[in-house]
């Protein structure tokens, strides 16, 4: 086996040194009746070239060369090449969690810089080293709000990513944590009146997403006022990080639960991504996840360590703020490098291109179909309602190597034939025009009712 650095003679020498007759001696503690006396039924050992071929086949079967208008929590942005060049360095790739600070200063300083940039972008005072993803970050943020306020229920906006809401429901179910949902108005924004009625003296937090699942930018200040008036915290989830280049950050929030995938992390069929929690300084001891902090060594030299570990499971066990241990460090490093590449000016310009592409696309689609929620600002997603079933439209687009918007029927049946479309700086005008053209064609025809509806998108 090519990964194993021992010759048969080495193995023999080691066995002799140990004083064992054969390798079986070392497995003697396993009761005989359970020992596996056959080969595992897994594929035979493959050569490196065969492995590459096998995965190349899978790659071909996986949407290669399609142009996609999908967003919905996973965004296709350009990834600067230096990201992979740098994260492929073995000293980052093959290092463990930086508990031994003296030989982990590279990782620790990178985390410290990451935390700083996340604070700068979100308007928060402290940020952690990462969480699994945006969905679990949102759920953990809600539980953090419960600890901070001592209250025991949560209000979540229906315009939060449906899968994030599902994850919160899973986390909350055994914590005695009821979750109420507040709807949206015809602007796509959270229904403030409904929120006012839903929020109670036991509400630990109001959890919204902005830009929300429809791409609409929420009126964060108004929601914050209502939450704070009732003694609840405001948790803002951000699923599209690039929006922070041009959309005012949620200064009024108490906790920001973010998904940073847009910052240089490949779509990768949904993971690994990079969640982050950021908050105010006064709440830091209730925050989950690892934190890097600045300190000095014995000679007064600046250095970094993992700190405030008394919040964490390896010290506090069942009294910890969370059970999280492994996080998404290497993915956070991708995010970090991306933030450095674009920086203060580039992030804004990048976000502006997203805004322009989306404004153009929404205008074009609007000529042939109904673009919902047009009266509130949006970032890079918009909802298009057609007379024809979006699954049918998508099926036709697919034949032209285009992946249309995400049909919303499954999550929002009340929106009818609606689909969520996304444009980024990667979306070309040609692709937009082609998709609009095909949608226009079908919208102009009388529905024949004869289309075979193929389940082409979930």
């Amino acid at each position, binding site marked *: 086996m090519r990964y194993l650095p021992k010759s048969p003679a080495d193995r023999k020498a080691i066995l002799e040194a140990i004083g064992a007759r054969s390798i079986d001696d070392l497995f003697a503690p396993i009761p005989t009746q*359970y020992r596996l006396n056959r080969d595992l039924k897994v594929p035979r050992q493959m050569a490196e070239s065969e492995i590459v071929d096998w995965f190349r086949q899978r790659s071909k079967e996986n949407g290669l060369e399609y142009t996609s208008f999908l967003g*919905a929590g996973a965004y296709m942005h350009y990834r600067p090449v*230096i990201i992979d060049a740098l994260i492929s360095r073995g000293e980052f790739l093959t290092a463990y969690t930086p508990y031994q600070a003296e030989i*982990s200063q590279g990782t620790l300083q990178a985390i410290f810089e990451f935390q700083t940039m996340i604070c700068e972008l979100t308007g928060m005072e402290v940020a952690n080293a990462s969480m699994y993803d945006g969905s679990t970050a949102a759920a953990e943020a809600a539980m953090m709000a419960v600890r901070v306020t001592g209250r025991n229920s949560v209000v979540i906006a229906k315009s939060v990513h449906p899968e994030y809401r599902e994850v919160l429901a899973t986390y909350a179910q055994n914590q005695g944590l009821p979750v109420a949902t507040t709807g949206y108005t015809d602007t796509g924004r959270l229904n403030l009146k409904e929120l006012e009625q839903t929020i109670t003296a036991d509400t630990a937090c109001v959890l919204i997403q902005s830009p929300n699942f429809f791409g609409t930018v929420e009126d964060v200040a108004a929601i914050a006022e209502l939450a704070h008036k009732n003694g609840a915290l405001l948790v803002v989830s951000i699923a599209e990080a690039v929006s922070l280049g041009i959309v005012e950050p949620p200064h009024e929030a108490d906790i920001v639960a973010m998904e940073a995938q847009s910052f240089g992390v490949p779509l990768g069929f949904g993971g690994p991504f990079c969640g982050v929690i950021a908050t105010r300084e006064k709440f830091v001891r209730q925050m989950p996840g690892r934190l890097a*902090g600045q300190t000095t060594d014995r000679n007064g030299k600046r250095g970094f360590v993992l700190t405030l570990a008394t919040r964490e499971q390896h010290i506090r066990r069942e009294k910890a703020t969370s059970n999280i241990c492994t996080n998404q460090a290497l993915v956070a490093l991708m995010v970090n490098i991306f933030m450095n590449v674009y920086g203060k*000016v580039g992030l804004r310009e990048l976000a502006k291109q997203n805004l322009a592409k989306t404004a153009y696309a929404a205008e074009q689609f609007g000529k042939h179909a109904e673009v919902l929620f047009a009266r509130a600002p949006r970032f890079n997603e918009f909802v298009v309602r057609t007379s024809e079933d979006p699954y049918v439209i998508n099926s036709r687009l697919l034949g032209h190597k285009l992946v249309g918007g995400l049909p919303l029927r499954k999550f929002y049946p009340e929106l009818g034939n609606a689909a969520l479309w996304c444009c980024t700086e990667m979306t070309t005008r040609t692709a937009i025009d082609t998709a609009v053209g095909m949608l226009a064609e079908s919208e102009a025809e009388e529905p024949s009712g004869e289309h075979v509806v193929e389940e082409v998108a979930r």
Partner: protein
Amino acid sequence: MKQMTRKATRHVNQNEGLIFEKSSPGKAAWKLPPLDVPEVDTAKLLGASERKDLGNMPEVSEIEIIRHFTRLSTWNYAIDLGMYPLGSCTMKYNPRVNEVVARLEGIANGHPYQPEKISQGALRIIQTLSDCLLEITGMDAITLQPAAGAHGELTGLLMVRAYHQAKGNPRKKILIPDSAHGTNPATAAMVGYSVENLKSNERGMVEVSALEAQMNEDVAALMLTNPNTLGVFEQEIHKIAEILHAKGGLLYMDGANMNALVGKVRPGDFGVDVMHLNLHKTFSTPHGGGGPGSGPVAVKRALEPFLPKPVVLQKADGTLGFEYNRPQSVGRVRSFYGNFGMFVRALAYILANGPDGLRQTTEDAVLNANYIRKGLEGVYDLPYATPSMHEVVFSDKVQAKKGVKTMDIAKRLIDYGFHPYTTAFPLIVPGALMIEPTESESKEEMDLFIEAMKSIAQEVEEDPETVLDAPHTTRVSRLDETAAARKPVLRWRPGQD
């Protein structure tokens, strides 16, 4: 240092400040293509929501970013540099072909919501890995959704709870041996269970009579790591399973140490009902400085209805698809399908090994741990003489008499060119030195390690100060963790040193 070690030589490395200290207006590492649609008036589109200023975000050039992170990287220790004997963490070689295949375009750029018709490659990867892991564990059904080991524990216990709930009573508590990882009790609390400790016996194993006494109808499950954190196989595992099952309880196995078992014995065969795996331990996906991980959960048939949704299944036309209609599911534990990129890497590892390679890997891991044990026995105190599997736990009992603790020895090991072993864990061993070489170490590397550990033991006798002040060769000496926690500085601000 009195003498140079054979393993390492000091060499110059570059100083580097914070990236913010290099920033100045007008520098840039980006260039966007010309816009092919009309420019927009951002104020008009966003109104009051328009952001005007990005604060102290850096402005730097590409070469500065390359140098910055390359310099930082050289301050890290890594498996690629040498043995990384962290017990329980399983720091094994991370094959490079894994990284290559994970970056193939269709695999790296697949959107999680793209139609199933054009997702057959990804679904096939999920399915093939699932099949392999089920065969390796001897279990019946699996979810790959959990993002890490602790997340797998959460998923597993949610399923345990749902299983009992479906029978009418979720039960109240989880039994956890005192040798367990901190994630075990933290997870039990998140699922609404109280935790009851189970004392280990003098051989470092679960005391069967104690388990029998503590087991009753309030116990939902026992969370057992096997081999446990002492590196000891729970030889009475069949009795443990029987005791639990007799009272309707479930046996949860923390699979953190599955690398001691692959190809030799299957948890499903010795009575485990639910278990998680750490793809970043046993299956070689890189730790990356703390993640990403992946924590699949495998279960017996009786728990299958409770798996998180969606699950992957084969449809009538032979293609693969996601099934969401799972009325008894515990729900979703993460968005989309989990850390898919880690599935790709783990599967590449399994394919590179095959059945013979996986078995040889396990044998070598156990062989190596026993070689280290033999080499250091008598030099360091061995609190449990029970046979070791993939790791060995010593204590600092002998050295503590000179005032030298496990952390000091660990820090001194850095000067010898090694990453420290795991210190002060498991908690049942005061002053623990927990050493796991993994299969990735050659005899030469282990001989250097043994030599270093012996040399440190000698230093403790002759010159304990050298050990107490270690490390002496790193960029920074021991850092003030107390100050860091007392007055946390968690971000840079302008004007801050």
